[in-house]
Each structure stands twice: as C-alpha cells, then as structure tokens.
C-alpha cells in the first residue's frame, strides 16, 4: 500500500459516505484471504460508486478484492497484496425481468437463492447449482464460472450470460453483449470476465438466460460394485438417448463418515451413481425403465429415491466442498478437469494415492462433464500434502487433464501454484491483464501464473 493511507481513506469516505466503509479490525478479519487481512472494506451501492472506488484504489496504489458472500475466496493463489475488500452486498437490484423473453438482468450481489425464488413463480429457473447452497451471489458465480452437477444438462454460467456491465480501474462502466439471446456485435468481453475471479474488472450487472423448470423430477441411485462397472454404466447412459439433468458418482474411503445427515453412500466404501431426471410422467417412466434395464444388464443395484433423500443428495453434492469442509478444516479439495473418458481411471489412481498416504478421501465426479472433485480429509502436513497433490496432478496430466487446488491449508498453498503451470497462451493473458489493469489493482497474484 502506498504511503498516504489516511488521505486515501478520507477520499473513500467522501466518495461513499462514512457509513459505507469500515476499518474495524474484527470486520476486516472476517474478509481475510489466505491469512491477509485488508485494512478497509467498502460497501458501494451503485455501479458508478464501484467504478469510482476502483479508480481511486488504482490511483492510490491499493490492491482490492471484490466479493459478496465470500463462498469462493479461498480459491486462487494467495494475494500478493490485499489492502481493501469491496463488498457487493449493497447491490441486489433486479433491473430487468421479462419472463416471456426468458431473460433477467441483476446486480452482482443478488444471491442465487433470491433469483431462483423470484423466477420460480413463473415456472422458470437459472439451472445452476454451484457450491454455497444458493448463498453465492450471481456476481461471484459468474466471475468464477462456478457450476455444480446441473452442468451436465445445462452447462456453466458461460453458457447463460447474455451480457454484462463491468466497472474498470479506469473508473468506467463498460457494456458487453446485451439482453438478447443472440448477439455477435464486437468482441465478447464477457467471456474474458467469466472465470476471471475479479482480476480484470468488477461485474456490476449481468444479464442471464433463464430456462423453464422441468415438470417433475426423480432421482435414481445405482450402486456399481467397482470403478470398472461405473465406467461401463457411464458409457451406456451417455450413449443412450436418456438426457439426465444431473449425473454424479460419489466415492468415499471405507469408514468415512462425513456428516450424520448425509446420504447413506458416503458412510461406506461403496460407489453411488446418482442420476436426476426431469420431465413429464411418461418421460420419467421411460427413463426409469431404461436405467433399470441398463442396471440389470450390468448387475448393478438400482433404486428410486424418495423426495427427501433426493433433495438431501443434491444439496450435499452441489455443496461438496462445504460439506467436506465442515468436519475437516484441514481438508485438501482438488478440482480435476479431464476428458470425460478418464474420470474413473483418475478416481482409481486417487484412491490408491490416498491409501498410500494413509489418508481418507471422498470424491464426486460429474460423469458427463469430465470434472472430478477430490477431497483428502486427513491433515497430512505441508510436505506430505504437497507430495500427494503433486502425485495426483501428475496423474491428471498423464490422462490429458489438469488439477486445480481449490482449498488447502495455507502452508501447503504457499508451496505451489494452485492453478498449475501456465502454457503458451499465458503471455496473452498477462498482456490482457496489463491492458485492463496495468497497476495490478484487482486481486493481484491470485490467478494462474500469479498474474
């Protein structure tokens, strides 16, 4: 931080009003990122205020991290500098909602749960179920391109964002895309912001595509005896005309009791494949018959869940990270992105590596997407944790994928780049960062290559 903190504080105060900022140590410490505590939190309530804050921060040499409910703040490398937090909790407006057009434009602080509630009355939804149990804000979800099991059928925020307004460190509010579902005017800057984790600009409004809610839902549980059978099941289902909404494989080491109210599967060494289907009665009947047939052929136990168990299963699966985290604060949570065909093989390697390290593990695989979340539950110490993480990273890369460390003790985080090594497109990424944020005001050091 630059020398003249006091005068900068005065300027922020003049800009937002004293009641919209705090330097209270206790409050600031709740917004710490990887052990770094900001000196100041600001609470702007308009897009213009956000833009002004960004410019002032840049001019003052402050480093800033934007957030709302802090559900994803532990993802990323430790910030190189972190002087102030920018909370978007004062920005929850819905600016535009047209059910017949299936579009909505909202401010970044609006929680996913609030949005779902609003549009459900028109039998619509935003088919996203990222971690955070609906508490995550739309701004954060888009900035992290966060998704959950529903990604199988609907894709990620990248597929749903129609346009956005972005506040930049130049103090401007810029627009990209729009509110219509098709638009190819100009460069798609929105894509750049989606998944940029607040390192290029702050999303101050986002327009999204909505979808009709499926008529009825039913969850089916299949219990393949081993990963080989799970792979056969996955192949059979993906090659069939069935198009489930969600399809995950849950894996846990023997004796891993994660939470008392968790679905049964996680209390054992069995595998569970959970499939969520939606549609009319006749569609669900057909899906059930077909799934049952496939299960029978492969001699896999099959059942349909009651509504309560189904709800429970998906709430936990969506919020895998927190679910694991609650009983295991030292857990290492890894996200592995792979070609679809490699997930079972990776899981098998991960089980072996965890066993070698004498650590219990739990995993959730988005079978049709190629994304696997692995949690190593026992505290391993930084050296062993690093060893295991590097082994798994090596396995992921051998299978043609990458490994991202989403959560781990700080000591371990200091030893590696959580995103993995940059590749031949890194130089362009670095230049883009410098073109938009030349003083590295926004979350410096957090993205790949500590950009």
């Amino acid at each position: 931080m630059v020398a003249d903190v006091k005068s900068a504080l005065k300027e922020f105060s003049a800009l937002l009003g004293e009641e919209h900022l705090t330097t209270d140590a206790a409050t600031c410490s709740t917004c710490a990122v990887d052990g770094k505590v900001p000196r100041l939190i600001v609470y702007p309530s308009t897009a213009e205020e956000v833009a002004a804050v960004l410019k002032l921060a840049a001019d003052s040499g402050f480093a800033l991290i934007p957030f709302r409910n802090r559900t994803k703040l532990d993802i990323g490398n430790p910030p190189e500098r972190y002087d102030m937090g920018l909370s978007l909790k004062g920005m929850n407006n819905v600016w535009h909602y047209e059910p017949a057009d299936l579009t909505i434009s909202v401010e970044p602080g609006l929680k996913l749960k609030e949005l779902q509630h609003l549009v459900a009355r028109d039998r619509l939804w935003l088919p996203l179920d990222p971690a955070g149990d609906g508490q995550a804000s739309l701004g954060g979800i888009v900035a992290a391109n966060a998704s959950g099991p529903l990604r199988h059928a609907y894709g990620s925020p990248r597929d749903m964002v129609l346009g956005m307004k972005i506040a930049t460190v130049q103090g401007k509010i810029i627009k990209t895309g729009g509110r219509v579902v098709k638009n190819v005017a100009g460069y798609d800057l929105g894509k750049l912001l989606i998944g940029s984790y607040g390192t290029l600009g702050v999303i101050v409004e986002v327009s999204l595509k909505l979808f009709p809610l499926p008529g009825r839902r039913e969850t089916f549980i299949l219990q393949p005896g081993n990963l080989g059978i799970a792979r056969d099941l996955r192949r059979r289902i993906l090659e069939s005309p069935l198009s489930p909404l969600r399809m995950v494989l849950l894996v846990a080491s023997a004796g891993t009791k994660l939470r008392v109210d968790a679905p049964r599967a996680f209390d054992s060494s069995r595998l569970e494949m959970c499939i969520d289907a939606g549609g009319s009665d006749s569609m669900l009947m057909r899906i059930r018959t077909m799934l049952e047939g496939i299960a029978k052929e492969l001699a896999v136990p099959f059942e349909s869940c009651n509504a309560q168990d189904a709800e429970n299963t998906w709430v936990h699966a969506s919020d895998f990270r927190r679910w694991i985290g609650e009983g295991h604060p030292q857990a290492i949570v890894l996200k592995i992105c792979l070609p679809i065909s490699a997930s079972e093989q990776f899981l098998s390697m991960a089980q072996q590596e965890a066993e070698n390290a004498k650590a219990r593990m739990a995993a959730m695989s988005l079978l049709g997407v190629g994304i696997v979340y692995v949690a190593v539950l026992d505290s391993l110490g930084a050296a062993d944790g690093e060893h295991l993480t590097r082994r798994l990273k090596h396995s992921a890369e051998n299978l043609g994928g990458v490994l991202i460390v989403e959560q781990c003790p700080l000591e371990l985080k200091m030893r590696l780049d959580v995103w993995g090594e940059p590749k031949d497109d890194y130089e362009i990424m670095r230049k883009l960062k410098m073109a938009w944020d030349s003083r590295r005001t926004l979350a410096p050091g957090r993205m790949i290559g500590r950009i």
Partner: protein
Amino acid sequence: MKSPPLIRELVRATNTEAVLWRAEDLLLYEYDALSVMRQPEAVVFPTTTEEVVRVVGIAAQQGVSVIPRGAGTGLSGGATVAERGILIALSRMNKIVEIDLENQRARVQPGVVNLDLSRAVEDAGYYFAPDPSSQKACTLGGNVAENSGGPHTLAYGVTTHHALGLEIVLSDGDVIHTGAKFWDRPGYDLTGVVVGSEGTLGIVTEITVRLCRLPEAVKTLLAIFDRVLDATRTVAAITARGITPAALEMMDGFTLRAVEAATGAGYPIDSAAVLLIEVEGLREAVEEQAQAIEAVCRENSAREVRCARSEEERALLWKGRKNAFGALGRIAPNYYVQDGVIPRTRLPEMLEFTAEVEKRYALRIGNIFHAGDGNLHPLIMFDARDRSECERVVRAARDLIAKCVEMGGSITGEHGVGVEKNELMPLIFSEDDLEMQRRIKGVFNPSGLFNPGKVLPTGKMCGELRIQIGAGA
C-alpha cells in the same frame, strides 16, 4: 501491377500451386456473400500451420495486411479485403484431425466444411450442433470467426458454446493454444474472446469442438397463419408454455411463396405466415411437446398445423427454409439481407414497423427469421441499376437496425459486423466500451496486421451502414 517479390516469397513459403496472383484469378476473391470490396494482392492456400506462420511473417515484413478466409459465404464482408492485403484461404486445411466419440470431441482444421463434420460422425449417432444455412459450404474456421448460429441454435447455442480450444497464429508469428479438450482450463477464456472476433485477432489453424448426441426422435411442424400478427404472438406463447423447441423459424407470405416456387416443399402459398417448428429428444417428450405446440398455435388462430410425415418431407421443409435467400433472389435482380436481434416478445411490434418501413421507402421486404431467438433477417428486394432505389434500401436497412437497438436488441445476431456495420457500432457501444475492445485487439494483434478495417469503427463514415449496394449485394 502485382508486386513480384511478394509473390515469389509467398511461393517460396508454400508452393506454386498455393498462390494465386493474376488479376483474373483474383476476381472471385473480391467478394463474399455481402458485397464486393477491393482485389487482394494475392490469395495463398496454406496446408499447414507452419505455412500460415511463414505467410504471416512475409506479410508483416512487406507491410501488407492478412485476411483469413474460409468459403467466403460470410454476410458482412469479413473475408474481403478492406485495405491492401493478401487473403489466406484456409480451404485446403480441411482435415478432420481427430474424432473422439467417447469424449464427445473432434479436432479439425479450419477449412473443414460444417456439414462434413456432422456427416463424419452421424453414423455413430453424433453431430455438430451449429447449423448455419450455408452449412453445406461454410467452413468451421469461418464459423469460429463469425460465431455462427443457425436455426437449431435456439436449443443448443451458437459456435462459442461448442468450441473448446483453438490453435492460433498471432501477428508476430507466435502460435498459441487456447482452451483444451476438457472444460474449465484455468486462466482467461481466450477461446471465448477469439470466437466471433472475425479474423481480427489471429488466424485460427485448428479447432477443438464438442459433438452432440443425435436425438432419438424429431418432429417438424408447420403452423400456417392467415395473419402475420398471430404467427408472431405464437412465438412468445410457445416459450411461455415452458417449451423450448430445437428450432422455431418464421417466414412471411411473400417469402414462402418465393420459397415454394423455388423448391416445391409444400409451403401454403395463400397464407400470411408460417412457423416452422422442430422438437427433438426422447420419443415421449417429442410427442408431448408437439401436441402442446399444436394447441398453442391453434389458440393463436393458426389455420392449420401440419406435421412432416416422413424424413423426406421434413428435409424438404428445411431445404426450403435454408435456401430461402436464394429463392428470393429469383424475384428481384438484387436483395440485401439484414441481421438484427430483438427480444422475442417484441416480434409483433417489429413486424409492424417493418411494414411501415416498406411503405415509407416504397420497397418490398421479405421477412424470414429465427423467431425463437428474436433474430430477424429482413430481405430487402431491389434493382441495383436503380440508384434511387439503392439509396432507399440502405436507409430502410438502417431504420430497421436502429429499431432493433431501440427495442433493446443488437445490430447483428449471427452475420457479424465486418465492414458492413463497424460504423454502426456506436449505436450500441459507448466510446469507453469501444476503447476496452480496442485494448483487446491491441494485445492480440498489436501491429494491426490481421483484417484491418473490420469490426471496430474506423471513424471515417460515422453511423453509416457500409455496403456497396450497387455492386452485387
């Protein structure tokens, strides 16, 4: 006269068969599907990424710009030469490098024709979802440049939703690889920025795409209306019923009479408008959705709702729709197709406005559009020999686009900005917005070598549609 040293160097970088430079050979390359621009200095047909790198190096050294081109089917002048330059025609880089069905991916060179990819995987039950009307000819490289859509993008999204990774030659000759075969590679989504950048950021030399499963069942309905208004109202009513068809297209009476005359697909020539609606998926879902759609059409005064009874009938209806531009070409000596987007609920209002514009400028306008997306393609008929008519055409087109913007829409939904609409960009973007776009271009293409004079406004013809309409639109 041509510059022989340039040609010699290009030949050395590739081979004699790979370079066209005689005036008569270059004639064809003055055009794309929009308009005629200037003649390129040469057209080079590389077959490898290395050749592209060499050609880019020579162009940079000689100070001529480089314009990538696929099949030249673009509708906004993107693949034509705006400033002195050479065309890199990627049509000979047409190999499907890899098909990986279990992972639902294919890796292709940019010159692969859109439909050829779907054909290569259809027996295994897969296809490539974006289906522009020119899909028999247009290339995947062109689709990436333009972020192409098509009728079925209503349910499946446009090219950007199906392109996962790119190999790109940059203006300094560096080759980078964006994205991956898998989702969520860490870092900024450069693939997402380059898709739709119209050849102004780099030359794409390889593309990794997603393949989709062919649906189990498909049903194609033709809803026939005596009033245009009823057809447009039906569009929003279908969505409001919670149905997302795979495609939802509209043609007005004028257009479908031309289509019927050209293809004999069975379109009712005495109607005011038709909706061509397709539903796909599980047999049960298709059946139920088709019934629901039929009910909605009837509630909105459809005269008749037909269902294609065979694959042949279905194919014929689509042939009619996909060849509609050509069919209208039989009616007047020239036509100019516009591409605007509006929120789909505003369709009735937009159609009324189009009728007003028709009257105001004494022109004939055919209405054909991806109704489900709110993506309009008004076709303005004219005779290029009539100067006054040409002027009216441009004014009418500009009014239509301005109306789209006023309704909260966009100046282009799938045809791109190119040279046609770059001066219209200020209609939807502020100077600040454009400045951030310029910075993106400055990072990828700092020397301005690639496709100059496209996408971003040049400031030379403020607020004007740029089409040399007398010349062959």
